[in-house]
């Protein structure tokens, strides 16, 4: 996907593709997006590598509800747990759930959408019915019903969120296939005797990769929001694991004495979502051919 840039042969005039990447990411929005996501990824990596200043689950009642200080940067909660470590660990949890759920829903949804658009006929109708049914539920309601009926763990939460996003990927993938399947180079590949499957894999899918990358990035931010909402409602990532939505829920009763309990998880969540949205928008202006006049 990345433009190979030699920089030696044509330094005066960068190729159109390089220019497009530059003009998309070297904007205030693009730079902000990359910077915010860098912060989020660093915090999540610290948590994953066990490099946090405190154990996010360790309780110490003697240190409960301390304000932000040099030792506890984001303060402590009512059980004396370190809020900074919990926010970092909550971000890692958000990213993990988002990555798994989007990977699953993209794999299933794109396969369904591509097959529906390419094969048409009965397959298309069946996929159409399935996507219509899944779209008929308000997304959070469907995720909630699924998450509530499965045993609670971060994996089942990811699966519940994945189901919600399958129809979106199916619909996004089906559209471009409809026009690509009759493109001249696809017909030519078929005319020289390539099988339908190899034409699909070699000629159709690569040409819609851009749209799918954009969709995936934006879906990551929705998945983070959905996970947080589920955890807030008590059907998401189970305690004692830190989840940003659960931290906001727990903070409600204590905001008058310990506002930092609400502020830091909230900011962490919003930073991750804004970062992904900005990166998604920048990617769209480079990769999505339909985005011309936006």
């Amino acid at each position, binding site marked *: 996907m990345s433009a190979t840039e030699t920089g030696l042969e044509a330094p005066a005039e960068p190729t159109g593709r390089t220019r497009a990447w530059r003009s998309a990411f070297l904007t205030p929005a693009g730079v902000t997006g990359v910077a915010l996501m860098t912060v989020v990824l660093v915090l999540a990596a610290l948590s994953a590598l066990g490099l946090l200043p405190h154990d996010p689950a360790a309780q110490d009642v003697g240190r409960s509800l301390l304000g932000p200080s040099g030792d506890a940067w984001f303060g402590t909660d009512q059980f004396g747990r370190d809020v900074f470590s919990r926010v970092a660990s909550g971000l890692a949890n958000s990213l993990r759930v988002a990555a798994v759920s989007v990977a699953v829903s993209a794999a299933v949804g794109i396969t369904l959408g591509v097959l529906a658009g390419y094969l048409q006929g009965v397959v298309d109708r069946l996929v159409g*019915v*399935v996507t*219509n*049914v*899944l779209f*008929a*539920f*308000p*997304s*959070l*309601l469907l995720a*909630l*019903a*699924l998450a*509530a*009926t*499965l*045993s609670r763990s971060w994996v089942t939460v990811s699966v519940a969120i994945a189901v919600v996003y399958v129809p979106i990927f199916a619909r996004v993938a089906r559209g471009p296939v409809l026009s690509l399947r009759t493109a001249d180079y696809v017909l030519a590949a078929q005319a020289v005797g390539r099988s339908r499957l190899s034409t699909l894999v070699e000629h159709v899918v690569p040409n819609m990769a851009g749209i799918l990358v954009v969709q995936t990035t934006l879906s990551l*931010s929705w998945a983070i*929001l959905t996970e*947080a*909402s589920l955890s*807030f*409602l*008590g*059907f998401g990532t189970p305690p004692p694991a830190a989840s940003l*939505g659960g931290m*906001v*829920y727990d*903070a*409600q009763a204590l*905001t*008058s004495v310990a506002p930092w309990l*609400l502020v830091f998880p*909230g900011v962490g*969540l*919003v930073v991750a*979502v*804004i970062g992904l*949205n*900005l990166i998604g928008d920048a990617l769209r202006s480079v990769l999505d051919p339909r985005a011309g*006049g*936006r």
Partner: protein
Amino acid sequence: MGRLRAVLGHTAVRRLGEALVTLVGVSLLTFVVLRVVPGDQITASYGIAAGELSPEQIASLREYYGIDQPWPVQYLGWLGGVVTGNLGVSTTSGLSVAALTAQALPNTVELAVLAILVGLALGVPGGMLAASRPGAARDGGTQVASLLSLSVPSFLLATAVATFLANQLGWYPNGEGYRTLAEDPWLNLQQMVLPAAVLGISIASPVLQTTRTAILGVRAEDFVRTAQAKGVPPGRLQVRHVLRNALIPVVTMTGLQFGFLLSGALVAEQIFAIPGIGRQTLLGLQQKEYAVVQSTVLVIAAMFVLVNLLTDVLYRVVDPRVRLR
């Protein structure tokens, strides 16, 4: 004209058929998902005491709840009941789900309507402002506001606003029991204003984007240039020619946001203690009441499908260009 009508009739009929197939699928999915729940209705309502029941007692309870029947029979029985208006009974409150829903639904609809009004009041002028000079500071400013409204989840905004107002001003109308619009209009509106504002802000962003794109699209059309050349005054041109045409996609967009509002209502009703249909679902899930959740979810999905269908039909009626396609 006759041919146009035939096309419209055909499309409407096709869409109606699709909606029916979708609703059957929705009912099947709802039924299956809630049958996967570990622990059945008996363990859910009797808790640990269920372990002390004799096999005979369990058998008779299973018969009472109808869960001794094979799944297809249970499904058809439930669906038959739903079609004839019998949505089942809530075992904790003893009330029929139809009665519960009839109480809860108006509150959710009121919330959704108010939220849409807030969303339009913020989004349409915002979109007009952004489109008035594309690329200028005002455009960038509204884009930032729109990104924020998209990225701050409603539960966070709701919690922050509610706790701030309660702590700083001591104002929290939702603390006292909920009053319906008919019982106490003034208190009801105070209780609705925060959730409606929070939900309205969350749909303002798509409304703003659609308005902006639509205005820019309409402004480039030939008839606008013609009107300009005729000497139509700029204010009148913007309102009568541009805005009126640009509002068509905005109306459609707003209709399509309805499902999103129902998702948001789940959260907002929970935080602001509004006894709507979202809260009913959540309570049902917490208490593992199959009948309540199943029927409520079906009602919500049916509403969503209907609103989308109406939006689609309305769009075709309002915009003749869509009919020809």
